[in-house]
């Protein structure tokens, strides 16, 4: 917007950035890019026992334009990689990415001809969740880490 540059470092700028980051971290509309096994645990996280909605992150938007958080859940093959890239490009700023599970983070034990060795070779990733598949507790932990990360973001990054 242009204003950020002038406001950076000033009192108003910091307050504004704090307020914005606060709003963003508690209003994470997610785009679930669910492909494989991790999707089962992803379901479990969203459902009654673990209830991701407590963090304000339960609303799935299946249109990337309306989502803030891209959950890449499961293995991404080279055939699917362009799709993932496209979904990421279609998302509106500010946006964050969570690599859910070992396959999304590093390719997992599928070290072969067709599997992308971690989605961070295609798109930038903010939080990695280990595990094959990760337990719901880990997912919630990752979400809280992401919230901390969002809160600490400086204003000029938000343009």
């Amino acid at each position, binding site marked *: 917007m242009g204003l950020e540059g002038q406001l950076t470092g000033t009192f108003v700028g910091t307050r504004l950035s704090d307020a914005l980051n606060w709003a963003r971290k508690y209003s994470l509309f997610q785009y679930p*890019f*669910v*492909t*494989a*096994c991790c*999707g*089962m*645990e992803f*379901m*479990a996280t969203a*459902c*009654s*026992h673990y209830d991701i909605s407590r963090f304000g992150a339960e609303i*799935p938007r*299946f249109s990337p334009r309306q989502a803030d958080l891209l959950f890449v*859940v*499961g*293995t991404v*093959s080279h*055939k*699917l990689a362009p*799709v*993932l890239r496209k*979904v990421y490009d279609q998302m509106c700023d500010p946006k964050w990415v969570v690599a859910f599970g070992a396959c999304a983070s590093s390719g997992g*034990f*599928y*070290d*072969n*001809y*067709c*599997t992308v060795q971690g989605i961070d070779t295609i798109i930038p990733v903010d939080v990695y969740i280990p595990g*094959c*598949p990760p*337990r719901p507790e880990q997912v919630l932990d990752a979400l809280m880490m992401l919230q901390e990360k969002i809160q600490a973001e400086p204003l000029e990054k938000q343009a």
Partner: protein
Amino acid sequence: MSEILIETEGGDLDSAPMNLQMGPSHPAMHGTIKMRVKLDGEIVQKTEVEVGYLHRGFEKSCESVTWSQVMPYTDRLNYVSPLCNNVGYCMAVEKLIGVRATERCEYIRIIMAESSRICDHLTCVGASAMELGGFTAFLYAIEAREELWRLTETVTGARLTHSYCRIGGLKDDLPVDFLPNYRVVEKKVRSLVADMHALLDRNRIFLDRMKDVGSMTAERALQWGFTGPVLRSTGSDYDVRKASPYMLYDRFDFEVPVGTKGDNYDRYLVRMEEIEQSFRIIDQCLKQMKPGPVNLEDGRLLLPPKDEVYGSIEGTIAHFKIIMDGIQVPPGEVYSYTEAGNGELGFYLVSTGEGRPYKCRVRPPCWSLMQGLHELLEGYQIADIVPTFGSVNMIGGECDR
């Protein structure tokens, strides 16, 4: 896909079908299926299903690891019912070697496989209800599944990807308090399933969406190679557990539910009834099984006990050989088949007598279901794709491997 299918009669309005691309990242496509749909208004004229987005090189990976190390890969085939795959693979290798697991081991395998099947059906029914907008039934299904997972976790140590079976045995016997725990879980799950029945069975909107949608005849379903609940909903009673009983399935009294029309509602009912039958089988297992060894006394297949590994040189060597070289499987080929959540799950193994599979082919039931899927969709409406696809229960890991 560009030719125009509808001829406008009378020529009053110019209309052309619309080509719509659904997926792979589409809420109803489970993330790994792409459909090119040709629409005449809301009616689906033609669909082309494209798969392969979750191809993870199962076979190639299996060929590069030892026979036992294939186990985790099989977990991730049908990740909604991993234990069925574990059991299927172990049976195939055992058939190739020419051994049979102990009786107690087979009972436990059946118990775990059937509980996996319940999870599979619950997920399928719940997810298809959710995609119709019936959120509450979905939540009940997942809650029931969660209970079963927690029980399975006490047995296998993992919630979802268990790798519980071993060639010639199991990771471990059932824990001592399994029976009381199981009774508690069974009660909860049964009551949740009853709630689902209450929510869905007579729900007018649900019935309207499911009945007479996506139907197929038994004959046609067989031609496409359909198996499992989808085939049974058409009226054919082919169930591997009954048709050619493996393990101890000939000892149980259970029924194979069949439908009549092969529409979505039949598939839903067949799945719900199979949950009931699985409970029956588990009950009979728990009654019939007797204490005994779960693993074969065979040093070629199973790792020696840990104190032997640390305490004796023979044990250390045996352990080292099995871990490093793998189990030595005699040369040959075998096709072994089991009834998994979605139908006949076959393993076609080829061994050249080395410690690694020369070929480890899996016959996924979903693959056949997907190639015939377009016949279930064409002629219905675009909104019908959702429940039909949901009730077929495509599992990406199994379909694309």
